[in-house]
């Protein structure tokens, strides 16, 4: 039996002018806990303006290789609804995966993907298509309590403590004393 909680993808928007970016995932028993856990795992220190979590099951995730092989896009059409389009254009970034590039109205996720490839160019490494109806946002959270305290919590590398260097010096000094003796 799979006892793992469902997986949610986390999208973080650093500032109002930046796109939402996929930063990783959390497992959670429900939507509210997913949002809360996303805050704890991904916004302890980094800057955050807005947060989305989306059940991973609800997202159509497609790589360029899969597109080349051809997709099984059999999917019942529904009434037109908005889909968020994310793409990965860069292989060098380690902290984020796909970026939000726009929103498209379509009758299915595959129809949205097809339209997105025409609209935004067919050269992405990865596409994610996210139905707007599946997005859980941080709109209702007290922002100053969720995101503001992080700004004062700068991450300090071990060298910031001025501890490793004096240790090393001390060791060197005692070694040279030993070799003189």
């Amino acid at each position, binding site marked *: 039996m799979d006892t793992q*909680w469902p997986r949610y993808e986390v999208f973080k928007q650093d500032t109002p002018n930046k796109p939402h970016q996929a930063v990783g995932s*959390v*497992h*959670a*028993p*429900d939507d*509210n*806990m997913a949002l*809360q*856990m996303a*805050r*704890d*795992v991904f916004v*302890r220190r980094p800057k955050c303006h807005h947060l989305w979590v989306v059940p991973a099951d609800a997202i159509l995730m497609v790589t360029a290789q899969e597109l080349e092989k051809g997709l099984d896009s059999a999917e019942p059409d529904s009434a037109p609804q908005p889909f968020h389009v994310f793409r990965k254009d860069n292989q060098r970034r380690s902290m984020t995966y796909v970026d939000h590039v726009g929103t498209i109205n379509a009758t299915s996720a595959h129809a949205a993907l097809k339209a997105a490839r025409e609209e935004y160019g067919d050269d992405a490494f990865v596409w994610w298509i996210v139905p707007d109806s599946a997005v859980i946002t941080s709109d209702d959270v*007290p922002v*100053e*309590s*969720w995101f*503001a*305290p992080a700004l004062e919590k700068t991450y300090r590398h071990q060298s910031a*403590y001025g*501890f490793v260097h004096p240790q090393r010096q001390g060791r060197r000094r005692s070694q040279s004393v030993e070799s003189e003796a």
Partner: protein
Amino acid sequence: MEPQLQQALINRLLAVADDELILGHRNAEWTGHAPILEEDIALANIAQDELGHAVLLYGIVADLGGDDADTLAMFRDADAFRNVQLVELPKGDWAFTMVRQFLYDAYELALHQRLRESAFRPIADASAKILQEEIYHLRHSHAWVERLGLGTSESNRRMQAALDTLWPYVGQLFVESADAEILVKADYFPALASVQAHWEQIVIPHLEASGLVVPDTAPIDAPRTVHTAHLDALLADMQLVARSDPEATW
């Protein structure tokens, strides 16, 4: 400041700061051991927040002529600590930790909403900062109480057992010290009865809505100077490194 008022202020700040430090340490004991990775990180965050609050408050004590934060945290023995017994009890299971955190988070929220208005400016400033984090802490433990209280019969049983054990200890948070009157008169600290009234408004309806029975057991009768043996064990662990080389600089 009048010496008598100053001493009363130092005593009260130590009580509030010691609660933060000891509970922060207890929560830090979960690091690497929490039931799921996300909560491991969440509780470590909260533990670190509580330690940060203790540092802020010890800083005010130091400015009033008391010892600095490191000395207060690492070089006092158990009998000099002024924390309530609630925070020194061993961490127990996840239900115990979450119930305790909920009871304490609600107390902190109620306390700092009043302290933010303190006539003593350094406290008002520190409280405004602490309150921001407490709003989030309470939301976190509030969510867990609901989910575990209404989860399975096993999770409900563990939550009720935790609540039954913890309830008598909560009263100590609201017992006024002998020198409290001048602090209230100076508007430096609120009367704890008003904090308790607010706390009950937060806690009792949520416990009941989460399928738990609020116990009617009498509170323990102990001043903040009296501790359980659990505090000795905690301090032996927490202070070990600092005391093994008191001259070390960090």
